């Protein structure tokens, strides 16, 4: 991939900002860990999220970055007075680090959800869970991406 000239790459229709950024052709609007950290701080209101209680299921190696299965599960009672209200998923090296935010209620029964996400390159995915009591829990996982998500 790195041997292709910029023009060839565009002709091939692989005009993927994320991938061009990886290969050092500039132009990429890569966010970086700092923006992700800022967004997490905004989510927690400056509180430090504790490690634990959050199970994060992602493949160690994702061959195709445009479909990466993700499952999040938070160990919580989901009672009316103590439940997980929000779960934020961040991919720090995506063009925009925010991936998805799940909202749960006691009617969810379990604070667990699965979806499929895009990852532009190998990176650490972070999830932060917020409880109705204002506690924050977090977990992270490194995913190696063989072919970038290209945002498409």
């Amino acid at each position, binding site marked *: 991939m790195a041997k292709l000239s910029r023009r060839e790459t*565009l*002709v091939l*229709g692989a*005009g*993927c*900002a*994320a991938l061009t950024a990886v290969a050092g052709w500039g132009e990429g*609007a890569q966010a970086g860990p700092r923006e992700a950290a800022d967004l997490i701080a905004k989510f927690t209101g400056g509180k430090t999220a504790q490690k634990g209680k959050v199970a994060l299921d992602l493949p160690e190696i994702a061959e195709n970055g*445009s*479909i*990466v299965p993700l*499952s999040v599960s938070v160990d919580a009672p*989901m009672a009316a007075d103590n439940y997980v209200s929000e779960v934020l998923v961040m*991919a720090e090296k*995506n*063009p*925009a680090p*925010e*991936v*998805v*935010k*799940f*909202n*749960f*209620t*006691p*009617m*969810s*029964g*379990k604070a*667990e*959800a*699965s*979806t*499929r*996400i*895009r*990852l532009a390159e190998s990176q650490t995915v972070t999830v932060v869970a917020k409880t109705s009591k204002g506690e924050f829990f977090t977990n992270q996982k490194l995913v190696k991406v063989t072919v970038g*998500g*290209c*945002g*498409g």
Partner: protein
Amino acid sequence: MAQAPRLKVPEQAKKGDIVEIKTLILHVMESGQRKDKDGKTIPRKIINKFTCTFNGKPVFTANMEPAIAANPYFKFFAKVEESGTFKFSWTDDDGTVTTAERKIAIT
């Protein structure tokens, strides 16, 4: 969005059961990062919100960014205490809202 969303919801449950729900809608989820062959950015067009309610009360919501893969799929759970109707909605960037519903009976 010519095709109806695909849903997997049990038709029956026992009172207090936590049931598994799976949803999938066909959508390109254009991220706004890609370029066409002339080098022009293809404008973003995604489904930015998915909600599920049961008898009018919120169960699960997903606020999506372009990093959700095409044809957004979700698996989540709901605790059912009474018979009723699950309503699902998907909101597109262009304002289009696709809805679907499924009934569940307590046995």
